[in-house]
């Protein structure tokens, strides 16, 4: 049976030979760029645009790409059930844990790639938007690089979490709907009712990682640790479930 690097190569080939990769990258860039531009344009006072808080507020939008890779990660795993390709996949690699491991690796690479591309896109858009308001984007500022580094961690971990979730819930539509509903609705309810509890949830942890200036969030480092735990938990449960169930 093939070794893990070979399987990672095969999973990457799967990703490249559908429209998933070509859809994920531009969508992530467009969403995060729109958020960054909107934040700059809607800032009340052009004079305070270069303040640390404002820079963090603007660049936190770069992390929007995480939602796109979350969906892409789910599709990477659950999509095989949707189209029936999972049969050929498991006939080739009956040790299914290896397939999940390879998918997790490809998810991480995809998340990192999306993080890099959206970060570059955000810097370019922010530079242009700042200039339009007669301000200079503080590219040399440590805040900027801390936020962008956070974006890479956020998108990478969310992509891994998506693969784990898609391995656990093999109905792609259900998994995507549940994930987006969780982010858009459930966590907000938690925040509204008990923000002390809410900050430990995955999306809020992600907001902490990209240094969104909100008071209830964890520190970036703690957020990273919490999100990494979620990603690892979903990856493990997804792999275990996948290994034993009937196809």
């Amino acid at each position, binding site marked *: *049976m093939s070794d893990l690097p070979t399987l990672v190569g095969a999973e990457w080939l799967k990703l490249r030979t559908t429209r998933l990769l070509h859809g994920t990258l531009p969508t992530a860039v467009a969403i995060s760029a729109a958020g960054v531009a909107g934040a700059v344009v809607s800032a009340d006072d052009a004079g305070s645009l270069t303040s640390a808080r404002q820079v963090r507020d603007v660049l936190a939008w770069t992390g929007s790409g995480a939602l796109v890779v979350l969906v892409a990660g789910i599709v990477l795993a659950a999509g095989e059930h949707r189209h*029936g*390709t999972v049969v050929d996949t*498991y006939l080739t690699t009956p040790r299914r844990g290896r397939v999940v491991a390879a998918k997790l690796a490809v998810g991480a690479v995809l998340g990192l790639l999306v993080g890099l591309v959206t970060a570059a896109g955000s810097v370019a858009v922010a530079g242009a938007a700042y200039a339009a308001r007669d301000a200079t984007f503080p590219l040399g500022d440590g805040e900027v690089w801390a936020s962008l580094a956070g974006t890479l961690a956020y998108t990478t971990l969310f992509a891994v979490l998506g693969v784990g979730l898609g391995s656990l819930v093999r109905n792609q539509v259900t998994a995507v709907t549940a994930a987006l509903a969780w982010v858009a609705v459930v966590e907000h309810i938690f925040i509204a009712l008990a923000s002390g509890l809410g900050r430990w949830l995955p999306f809020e942890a992600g907001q902490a990682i990209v240094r969104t200036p909100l008071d209830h969030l964890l520190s970036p480092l703690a957020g990273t640790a919490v999100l990494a735990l979620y990603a690892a938990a979903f990856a493990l449960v997804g792999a275990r479930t996948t290994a*034993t169930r*009937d196809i």
Partner: protein
Amino acid sequence: MIEIRDLTKSYGGHTAVDRLSFTAPPGKVTGFLGPNGAGKTTTFRCLLGLARPSAGTALIGGRPYRDLAAPRRTVGAVLESSGFHPSRSGRDHLRVVARAAGLDAAGIGAALELVGLAGAADRRVGGWSLGMRQRLGIAAALLGDPAVLVLDEPSNGLDPEGVHWVRQVLRRWADDGRTVMVASHQLAEIAQVVDRVVIIRDGRLGAETDIADLPAARVTVRVDRTEPLLGALGAAGVDHELLADGAIAVADRAPDEVGALAARAGVTVTELGRSRTGEALEALFLDLTGGNGR
């Protein structure tokens, strides 16, 4: 060699496969026959590591599928539940299989050529007909040049020319000394090509036999007056049966012997012939599957 031993697979309270045992030896096309829902696909899923048996074993070359060192080089399988990503091309589907299995990508062109898809291979599978997808599935199965071929209803969606082509593939593969097992709910599709049949119904084994071992073909005779011949056959102790259409079926006697008996009985033979193996197989199949297998 495929060996199924006391295989049982239950889902909740429903037993889909019930203490099933049979073997499919190399060098033969083994037909796996039974009505829809008899448990053929479940058996294959257990055999191929896609479902866990509740009890018993399903082995390929003495090992469970999950323990095969190189599954794609050992077994080629086409299952009804397998599918293709609609936006991936046929060639890319095979590239993915070859890559994951560590197979030489050079074989992809030959496999596409073999199944007659060379011209369409670079188009997205989403626009393909059922028959083309079936051919692509067979190409994926043959890609690893496997010693064992397992096919579930391979003729589905194929036109008559395609069905004929599948039969040729099965024959060639078996004549090459490989193990070929093909499931079908339609006897007519595979009757011409099988060397051996395993017939199941309600998850249980109905029959397992080589075609060569089927009950000797019977001789059918028509005469102007049946009574004297029936009397002569009875007196000679020959196993026989008066068929509904007035013909008499005679077991264990050659046509010339039956003709001689008729002459001695003083009746005139109007028709004399030997029934074919296919008819014996069909009789067995209909008998075991309650006649609803067609």
